[in-house]
């Protein structure tokens, strides 16, 4: 499996497992900005996700935020551990994937690790 992470400007990460299959999560910067997460809602397997459209909610104690899909495709797995332990996203955001998507037909403009670091440094 490729270890490389790509990032959307809306602070989600994408890790491609092969050409048409990827895992999606949120960046370390995003979890740190959100603060302690206490609730996450996820789509269901077989749901369609679309580039730039929200597919999940993350709630901290203070506020709710949307998570946007960096790809278009079909959800083939959701990380149900996050439903009971949303704090996993705070403690290890790069391990705490939200969904797995297959049949990827489109993707957002994605940044490399370095480009993303530059973006959040601005």
């Amino acid at each position, binding site marked *: 499996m490729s270890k490389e992470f790509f990032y959307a400007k809306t602070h989600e990460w994408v890790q491609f497992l092969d050409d048409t299959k990827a895992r999606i999560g949120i960046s370390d910067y995003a979890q740190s900005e959100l603060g302690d997460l206490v*609730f996450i809602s996820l789509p269901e397997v077989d749901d369609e996700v679309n580039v730039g459209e929200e597919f999940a909610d993350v*709630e901290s*104690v*203070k506020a*709710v935020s949307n998570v946007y899909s960096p790809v278009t495709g079909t959800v083939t797995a959701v990380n149900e551990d996050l*439903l009971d332990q949303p704090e996993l996203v705070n403690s290890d955001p790069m391990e705490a994937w939200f969904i797995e998507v297959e049949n990827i037909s489109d993707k957002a403009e994605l940044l490399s690790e370095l480009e993303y670091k530059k973006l959040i440094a601005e």
Partner: protein
Amino acid sequence: MEKKTPLYDCHIREDGRMVPYAGYILPVQYKTGLITEHMTVREAVGIFDVSHMGEVIIRGKDALDNIQMLVTNDCSTMVDGQVRYSPMCDGMGNVIDDVLIYKINTKEYLIVVNAANRHKDVEWMKGNLFGDVELSDISDDMALIALQGPLSKDLLTRIAGPEALPKKYYSFLVNVDISGINCMVSRTGYTGEDGYEIFCQNKDAVRLWDTLLETGREFGIKPCGLGCRDTLRLEAGMPLYGHEMDDTISPLEAGLGFAVKMNKEDFIGKKALLDKGAPKRIRIGLKITGRGIARENCPIFYDDKEIGRTTSGTHSPYLSYPIAMALVDVDYSDIGRKLLVDVRGRKIEAEIVPLPFYKKA
């Protein structure tokens, strides 16, 4: 442009995440995070900058008579050094603000008001004064630091000695020496824990903050932001102006009947409250049993009928489930009733539970 409190640099030093609030720039949390700050107040001691709160002095021979007209609670039974909570109503019997009244002596009272309402309150009070009385808004000269949590007494005793501390809840002492700083110390708070609120001059605020933080270290003290101030008061079932009450909500609807003394000769709003009779809606506590967090202004349903709306809501760090307060039709307000709350278009299950959600042991 928001104002800085005298403790602004202290917050930056502690990596406070600064946000605008009620005309001030204040920390919503520090680097340790809201949940840790919240639990520190429940288990040890937290320190808050609440300098944004407004302070108004009412002085003169007719001070008490004026206060009796301005607020709904009865202040005639107060002794020097006592604090009393009260709503302040308009002529319609709706809430202009909720305030704390400090009796310094029979001719001098301090009123602590919500920051966001300060100018409105001062105008309102000035417009209703009569007889031998004068009002001064000293908010811009005063800093206010809250020390909250079960270890706050031990910490303050260590610094100032046992004699310096007010003995009873809702009492205060003036001219308390804390490391050479002249303070007023009040045994009050907005967290549901034992604690103190310490007033001092702006110029002394940083030194007071640093002294408390330094000595507090062995007690496990942490600086705490507005975020956990809100979750703490919510767990404690304490109302917040602009949420559980405002100028469209009566104090009786807000569940503040204990502080509305209808047997008092007169007060502004009394007639309107009498005319309105028993409230048709009432403040309740909700435990969210479904998946999701109800924030403020979510519609509440029983059998497809909308019976009210949430006024505040959050995930409770202490209880580890979401809680909310709401104003609902009094006919549907019984404890144990199961309701549905509309959270962004999704109806989730909730149950009416007694307030407060949290009560200290």
